[in-house]
């Protein structure tokens, strides 16, 4: 059927609840890329087979997106008639059998391998006070709805925000709400979304475009993928709202080809929404038309920069150009274009329905709302979290993230990917919001957070990120093309033990010039990892060049492995695992390493059972 009015939509939503009798148990299997990679397909099949074999009529199986606990996948959630939820982790075939026999057949939930996330999801239809540490606004439907079912989305008030805009608000009214909400771009820069929309709306042009930037490329960031895989319709709906607000009739989703599942689900969602009259010509019977095309990116990081992204859609080489003119004035095909990131769009529908005051009651004054972060590195709970802005790093790492792996000492956190910087342990109590991060020499970026402990060398970390920028630079402007390469070469020299104090001076000078002269955001921020580690950890750099040591014992050129005579029991294990056979020693006698042949792979240290091998 086609939805031809607001009432149609309301009726249709009602019918979705009315027709089917709710089963006693609903089993949700997380089937985003993280789940599938951990074996969720097997889990799902096992559930299907077992339920069929046993002929359980009171169980509904449903695929859903990611709930954020990627390190515990595959995850299955069982919800009973009363709405009680049990979340099972690492659900393999055997676990499925247990869940079915104990929980689904006998009503006894298992107690092992179960998590109780400190997480609250917003509900579009009602307002509840915030009670939990994690608050899911952008991720509200991920892990709840079936991403391949439009009906499921509509059941959770899908397309109500668009209907509200079309039937109750003027385009300008929509922009005013977004402006007042204080929503800032979630892709990195943090520019006011409402202001951006108003610039596009102001342009007097026959054709305007809406682009969704889904070219997520920061190492360790995957929130956009998770949203697209778990709740694709929310992005389509928000893009249509942006189109209505700005006067654009065409939407493009620029998504990297490495996200096949997200692409597939987007395609399904576009087809279903168009079929229902929620996209395409005369949406819901109004005279507003909006179509959406998917454009696949070939995996160039720089294509996440909006002007490069536009070039790529136009079929040109993905390289940025001078701004101004901004895309809002001259964007895709020279037409006014609004480019927003996936997570930004994911916030639009809740703001429209629940209002700007609701939105800016969360977070901080300058950074209202919530932010999704991808936690990675030396942290216990690796995965996606969504928290109100303004949470401190300490809360993020120790409360939400579950602390540092093996109880080691927290050293620093890297935010903002290759464009960001490090925040040291001394600043654990700084609230996380756009401006505080910039003030610390880092940036929000897309929200990747990589946690580092005492074993991480800051020079090496800077080198890692810079290498990424060197490879991903488009090569157009001199400072980024050659400057970053030289910067990287200096870092290599330092980690190889050949650096000088003048090299440290050069890093600062060249880093400053690259920031000052590069053409696009990628180039202008690429020295940040170097400059911020230099700012907070200059002593580590000095140790590398003056003392020729790596305090974190990471840089292989600066460390040596030794066998402690008082601990070695002569078991020969180290000599046997050494890939270059540079360990001598008889059975039950002290072993020794021929230093000039050692390649510092650390295999001996890992193998030694008596902790007799140390690195210095």
């Amino acid at each position, binding site marked *: 059927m086609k939805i031809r009015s607001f009432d149609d939509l309301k009726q249709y939503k009602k019918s979705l609840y009315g027709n089917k009798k709710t089963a006693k148990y609903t089993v949700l299997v997380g089937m985003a890329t993280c789940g599938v990679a951990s074996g969720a397909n097997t889990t799902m099949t096992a559930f299907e087979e077992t339920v069929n074999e046993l002929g359980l009529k009171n169980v509904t199986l449903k695929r859903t997106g990611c709930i954020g606990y990627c390190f515990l996948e595959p995850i299955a959630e069982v919800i009973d008639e009363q709405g009680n939820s049990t979340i099972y982790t690492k659900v393999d075939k055997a676990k499925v059998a247990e869940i079915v026999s104990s929980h689904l057949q006998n009503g006894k939930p298992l107690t092992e391998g179960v998590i109780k996330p400190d997480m609250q999801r917003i509900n579009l239809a009602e307002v509840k006070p915030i009670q939990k540490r994690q608050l899911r606004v952008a991720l509200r439907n991920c892990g709840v709805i079936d991403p391949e079912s439009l009906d499921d989305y509509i059941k959770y008030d899908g397309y109500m925000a668009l209907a509200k805009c079309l039937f109750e608000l003027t385009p300008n009214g929509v922009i005013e709400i977004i402006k007042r909400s204080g929503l800032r771009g979630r892709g990195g820069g943090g520019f006011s979304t409402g202001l951006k929309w108003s610039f596009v709306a102001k342009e007097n042009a026959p054709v305007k475009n809406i682009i969704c930037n889904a070219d997520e490329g920061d190492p360790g960031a995957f929130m956009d993928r998770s949203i697209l895989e778990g709740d694709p319709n929310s992005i389509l709906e928000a893009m249509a709202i942006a189109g209505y607000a700005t006067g654009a009739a065409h939407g493009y989703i620029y998504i990297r080809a490495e996200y096949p599942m997200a692409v597939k689900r987007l395609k399904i969602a576009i087809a279903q929404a168009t079929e229902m009259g929620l996209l395409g010509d005369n949406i819901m019977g109004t005279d507003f038309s909006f179509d959406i095309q998917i454009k696949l990116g070939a995996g*160039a990081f720089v294509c996440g920069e909006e002007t490069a992204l536009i070039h790529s859609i136009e079929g040109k*080489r993905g390289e940025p150009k*001078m701004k101004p003119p901004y895309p809002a004035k001259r964007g895709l095909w020279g037409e006014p274009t609004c480019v927003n990131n996936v997570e930004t769009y994911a916030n639009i529908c809740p703001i429209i329905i629940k209002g700007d005051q609701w939105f800016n009651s969360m977070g901080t004054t300058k950074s209202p709302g919530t932010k999704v972060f991808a936690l990675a590195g030396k942290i216990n709970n690796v995965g996606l979290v969504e928290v109100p802005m303004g949470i401190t790093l300490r809360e993020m790492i120790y409360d939400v993230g579950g602390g540092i792996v093996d109880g080691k000492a927290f050293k620093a956190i890297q935010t903002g990917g290759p464009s960001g910087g490090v925040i040291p342990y001394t600043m654990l109590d700084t609230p996380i919001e756009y401006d505080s991060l910039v003030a610390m020499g880092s940036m929000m970026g897309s929200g990747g957070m990589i946690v580092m402990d005492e074993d991480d060398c800051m020079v090496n970390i800077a080198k890692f990120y810079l290498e990424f920028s060197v490879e991903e630079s*488009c*090569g157009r402007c001199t400072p980024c093309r050659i400057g970053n390469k*030289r910067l990287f070469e200096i870092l290599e020299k330092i980690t190889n033990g050949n650096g000088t104090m003048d090299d440290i001076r050069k890093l600062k000078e060249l880093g400053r010039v690259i920031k*000052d002269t590069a*053409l696009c955001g990628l180039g202008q921020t690429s020295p940040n990892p170097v400059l911020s580690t230099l700012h907070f950890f200059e002593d580590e750099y000095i140790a590398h060049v003056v003392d020729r040591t790596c305090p974190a014992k990471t840089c292989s050129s600066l460390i040596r492995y030794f066998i402690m005579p008082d601990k070695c029991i002569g078991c020969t294990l180290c000599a046997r695992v050494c890939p270059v056979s540079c360990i001598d020693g008889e059975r039950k006698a002290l072993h020794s390493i021929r230093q000039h042949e050692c390649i510092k792979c650390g295999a001996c240290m890992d193998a030694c059972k008596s902790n007799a091998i140390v690195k210095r």
Partner: protein
Amino acid sequence: MIDVTINNITVSVPEGTTILEAAEKAQVHIPTLCHLNMPNVRYVNKCSSCRICMVEVEGRANLVPACATEVTQAMVVKTSTPRAMSARKIVLELLLSDHPADCLCCPKNTRCELQSLAYELGVREIAYKGEQSIYPPDVTSCSFIRDLNKCIMCRRCETVCNNVQTVGVYSAVDRGFDAVVNSAFGRPIIESPCTFCGQCVSVCPTAALTEVNHTRKVLEALNDPDKYVVVQTAPAIRVALGEEFGLDAGTIVTGKMVAALKQMGFDKVLDTDFAADLTVMEEAAEFIDRVKNGGRLPILTSCCPAWVKFFEHQFPDLLDIPSTCKSPHEMMGAIIKTYVAEKIGIPAEKIYVVSVMPCLAKKYEAARPELVNDEMDNVDAVITTRELAEMIRESGINFLELQDEEFDHPIGQSSGASVIFGTTGGVIEATLRTACEWLTGKPLNKIEFHELRGLSGIREAELEIAGMEFRIGIANGLGNTRTLLEKIRNGEVHYDAIEIMACPGGCINGGGQPAHHNNWGILEKRSRALYAEDQRKPLRKSHENPSIIQLYKEYLGEPNSEKAHALLHTYYQKRELV
């Protein structure tokens, strides 16, 4: 108008003006490198990629490129702050750190914009050294060499090839430090649809693109006692060569050029203008034949080898409309090795024909396998205006003090019509002077067709000749040519005759001419000089040239005769785009 303050000087400029343009008005010099502005061909390279012209603007967090940043009301710009100056210098040092420092034997030595900039910015050391890019040079073409090691990614070649000429041979490829301007799939240029027009060579600031140098080959021929070396010079050389010796653009140095060539030891110094007259004879006859016998119109001129290769690749369906005439210097070569050889009693095998051309495509053209007669190349070597100047300098000739000398005979005479072959509109005007008289049978009242002159990209005129209406079109620059030809292909316009030159402005702006440094005024002066030379000539019409009349009488018979066809005409072939 917008008021902008640059280094404490306030100037008023129209909206849309860049900081660089405003600075010029304020007489503040800002160094640039990748920037290239040629408004007359609607070509601005504003890629702002080199980051040399960085300046400070009050209120902006970062430095901005002056070439691509438009001024705003009350903008305050500072161009020579320590911050801007040190940034510029470091950026230049970065460029130099990935550039072979072989200036001493570089073809662009003392004429390289990168080298000049290093001097201007006082570079004394390269602080940031590291890995250098290594690419094998592309020496596959007969026209120019690509040495990507010297490419600084200014993208001028790419812009001129893609946007002005619409040939699209170049694109930036690869990423990061490996990024470089290259042909599709990194194939050799010879396998691309390149027309060898050489406009990319003209705009290249370094020696990444340089002509294939034939001076040594010519010197060897001169040194060979068994060779009788004949040199011919194209019309556009005489109005540009002087610039290489410090003379004003448009200074006519025909006499000094002939004197220099004679001093250098050429056995005969001839004028390609004679062959231009011959081209007019053949082309006018072909045109009249098509008009009278219902042949396909328009007829397109075929003097320009870059244009010939362009239509072979881009418009293979229109292969039958260009004239079949060889280009003038190839006709000249054919006549030298037959008629002249007989006249002077030297066996053709011993004759070595050198063409001095304003053009790089002529080097490629001379190597086209079909341009031979009796299994001998019509032309053996082609050198450009720049290479001729190089040879004159190398010979130690004091060019400016030379006494004027005359071209050699028997075919040294030429008309004014032939001289204007060197500028856009000249070939068609010369052809019409003859075609009109042949069609009407009466002498022309007005020899000069001013409606056909000028430097704009596409021009047209309607003429009434012998009671018939003729629509004449002119295009210069291959982008303009494409626009015109597409209209013809789609049947949107009708023309009877069209003149096409691949280079914007015609041969006066050929890829082998002295650099004009974006100064369109230089091209205008060269063009005016050619028309002045035409006016000065006692003979103004090709068919009245006695040497031409004699050649037909003694050797060729009629225009378009069988013999004329064998020597002076050629054929074309379809070529692939990829």
